[in-house]
Structure formats: C-alpha cells, structure tokens
C-alpha cells in the first residue's frame, strides 16, 4: 500500500509524457517538408506486412464465433440468425478490437524496439545533427502509417471473418454464398459499420503514438530497448480497450447501439 502513491505518480507522469508527445505529433503532422518516401515505406512495413497475420486471425475468429454460437441459437430455434449475429458482432466490435490488439503487439512492439535501438546507439542523435528533424522523419511517418493502414486492415479482416463464418455455417448445414451474403448485407446498417470504422483511426493513432513514445524515450542499454517494446504492447493494448469503452458509451448516447 505504501507503494501506491508512487505508482500513481509514475502513471500520471507517463500519461503526461504521452500527451506531450501527442501534442508534438499534431504540431508536426502537416509540416511542409514531409518525408513521403518514409511514410510509404512504413505503410508497407506496418500495413502490408501485417496482412497475413491479421487475415489468419480474422479467419479463425469468424469460424470460431460461428461454431461456438450455433448451439445457443439452435436451442432458441434461431439458427437462421447465425449469419446476421456473427456479421454484426464481428463488424461492430470483435474484428476492430482484435485487429488493433494484434497490431499493438506486432507494430507497436516493433516501433518501440526499433526506435529504442536507434536511441541507445545514437542514430537519432546522428540524424538530428545532420540537419534532419528525427521526430518528423521517424515518429510522424510511423504514426501516420498506423492511422492510415489500420482501418484498411480492419475492413479486410471484416471480409475475411465473414467469409470464415460462411465456412463455419456450412460445416453443419448447406447455405449458398449468395444467400449467406444477402443475409449479412440485410443485417448490417451504417450504424454498425461507421462507428467501428471511425474508432479504428483512433486505435491506429494510439498504437503509433505509444509505440513511438516508448522507443523515443528508451533508457540506455539492451534492457531499455526490451522494456520499450514490452511497454508499447502493454500500454497500446490497454489504451485500445479504454478507447473502445469510451467509444461504446458515445455510440450508445448517439443511439447507434
């Protein structure tokens, strides 16, 4: 109990540091001398190279949710509702959050480790003394890459998860793809898709900011780099859940739920 105030103080300092870092990002986000080549490279690294992992996870999620939900719906004679139930659950909540958590692990830790390694080996200092603003070149491009690519990954994951659900449905019954597709489209509304799509931009922002922040402020040595990568995952994942919690309250107030 005696340690609690120190832990709270440390958490508040961390929150303040991240907020300051975020402010610095927004001040530099639209600078005229933008490193477009580095942004493109980061989009490939963070977006394109995450496709396989996100795709596989989405497939498994769609299949598992379908197979797990069928017995419960069958008990109430509502097995025909399976495509609609899975589609709405996936699109509204499961795919955006799980995809964001995967990206917090894969992309966030990678950013934390890479920038942390650059910090401890003075590469960031070298960039600074060469007349390049390292914050703009390294941080702004990386955060923009996660903001831009995460929504695309989520949309693709939605499609894959719904496709996997069709596979799951056909493990016990025979439902044509056109019928399944029609049921999914009939069940989904803009109020299911739009709020979820908007929050993926926030997930992307948070994952990029936290990953870069932990690496940028990494302590010296290999232990510091390791801690940066670990912290990026833990903090990024936690903030994804917090944003999700806030988002669901907002959508509820707006009548989307």
């Amino acid at each position, binding site marked *: 109990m005696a340690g609690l105030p120190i832990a709270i103080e440390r958490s508040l300092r961390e929150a303040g540091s991240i907020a300051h870092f975020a402010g610095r990002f927004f001040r530099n986000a639209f600078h005229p001398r933008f490193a477009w080549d580095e942004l493109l490279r980061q989009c490939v690294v963070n977006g394109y190279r995450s496709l396989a992992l996100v795709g596989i996870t989405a497939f498994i999620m769609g299949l598992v949710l379908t197979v797990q939900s069928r017995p419960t719906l069958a008990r109430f004679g509502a097995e025909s509702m399976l495509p609609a139930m899975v589609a709405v659950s996936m699109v509204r909540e499961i795919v955006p959050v799980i995809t964001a958590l995967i990206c917090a692990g894969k992309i966030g830790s990678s950013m934390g480790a890479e920038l942390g390694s650059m910090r401890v080996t*003075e*590469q960031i*200092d*070298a960039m600074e003394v*060469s*007349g390049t*603003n390292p914050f703009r070149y390294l941080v702004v491009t990386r955060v923009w890459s996660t903001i831009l690519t995460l929504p695309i990954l989520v949309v693709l994951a939605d499609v894959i998860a719904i496709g996997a659900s069709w596979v799951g449905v056909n493990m016990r019954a025979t439902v044509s793809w056109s019928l399944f597709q029609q049921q999914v489209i009939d069940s989904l509304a803009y109020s299911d898709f739009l709020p979820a799509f908007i929050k993926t931009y926030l997930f992307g922002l948070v994952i990029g900011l936290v990953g870069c922040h932990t690496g940028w402020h990494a302590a010296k040595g290999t232990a510091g780099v390791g801690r940066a990568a670990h912290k990026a995952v833990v903090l990024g994942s936690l903030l994804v859940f917090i944003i999700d919690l806030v988002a669901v309250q907002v959508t509820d107030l707006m009548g989307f739920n």
Partner: protein
Amino acid sequence: MMARPPSTEREHVVRLRGLQLSFGDNHVLRGFDLDVHRGENVMVLGRSGSGKSVLIKCVVRLLEPTAGQVEVIGQDVRALDDEALDRLRVRMGFLFQSSALYDGMTVQENLEFPLRRNWVATTPEETDARVEEALQAVGLAHTRRMYPAELSGGMKRRIGLARTLIMKPEVVLYDEPTTGLDPITSLEMVELILGLQRNYGTSSIIISHDLNVAKRAADRIALLHEGRKYTEGTYDELRASTDPLVQRFFVMM
C-alpha cells in the same frame, strides 16, 4: 610556405564562453572557454567522465547548456530556432564514437540520407558522384551495398566520417575518433582527419585520449579539468610543461 597569422588574428569558427552544464547536482561543465579558428584542429583532453563528450554535444546543441555562450560560424547556437539550427548543423559534421550508422540502411543509403533530406544533390548522378567521392576519401568505395552489421569497427568509423564529409562541413566535431581501433587503423583515422583539414579547410574539435591524435593532428590542445579549461597549448608546449597535472596526463598517455 607562408607562416600562419597568430591565432588571435584569425577568424574563429567556434567560440565558447563560460559554458556550464549540470545534470541535477552533478556540475559537469563549470565555465569552459574555447576558441577554434578557421582551419584549425583543437583537441580537448581530459579524464574519463570529465565532460568532454558533453562539451561537443553542447556545441551542436544535442544538449542544452545551463549557462554560457556557444557561437558557431558567427551564430549564437542557443538563440537559434529549430529551422535555423538545422541549417547551421548542415554546415557542421559530427563523428560519433559509436559511428551511429543507420543500421537499416546500406552504406550507400547512409551517405545519401543527409543529401536527400537536405536537398543538396538534385539529380541521382550528382548524388552518386558525391557518395563515390566521400567513399574514395575514406578508402571504402567497395562497401556501397554493405550493411553496417557487416562492417568492422574501423570501417564503421570511416563510413561515419564519410557520411560527415559528404555535406562538406566547415566544422567537424570528433568524439573519440580512434578509441577502440588498432594502432594502424588509428593512424589511418589521424591521416583522414589531417586530410580533411588540408583538402577541405575544415576546422575541428577533437575529443580524444590518443597520444597519436594529440601529436599528429592537433594544432592546439585544451585540457579540461573540473569543468573548466585548465590550460592550453601545442603538443610540444604541454609536453614540456612543469605543471604536475599536465605532466600526469602526458606521462600516463
């Protein structure tokens, strides 16, 4: 060969006055003064942990001094905004002790990076020519496609120097350029430093413990002790000094 005018009459490119830097209660620099004149190599000698690396990081504003004046190529470094500081830094070079090569880029990409980011070379041919010139100057033209992990320590240090050279700086700051190198490679580094001075007219501040650097490359040596300049002079002057502290440095070296 014409004699050089006395240092007091030559243009200074770096002027430090009353430089102070503290980390909490640890007062590393307590009022350090130094002048570096155009075309001159000045070495700063001091014990480990005396603040030598901190000193040159203040010159390029990687660290903010607590107090004092830092003037580089006629500009007050502490008063510059970020854009003006970046423009000044382009006219300076910094060779890190660790070389600090970008490990995700090849040697060629490392050297191209400052050119591209500062829009110095406008065509691929011009960029290529400057990369070739810089690599030839350090004798490593064959390493273009190699990554830093594939280079030896000495090669990394020379590529780091090439990356500094490629922007044709007026002032170069060397942080322990020969530390960790074998005697032959150390001598090669010293020759490179002298070559820069001779061929490009660069001025430099060299942080080092190396006797060879002091003897061969330094026009003047300033001794940093307890955060201040204790004394300065040429290698021969300091070697002949009867001051006990100065003698201890030169005997131990």
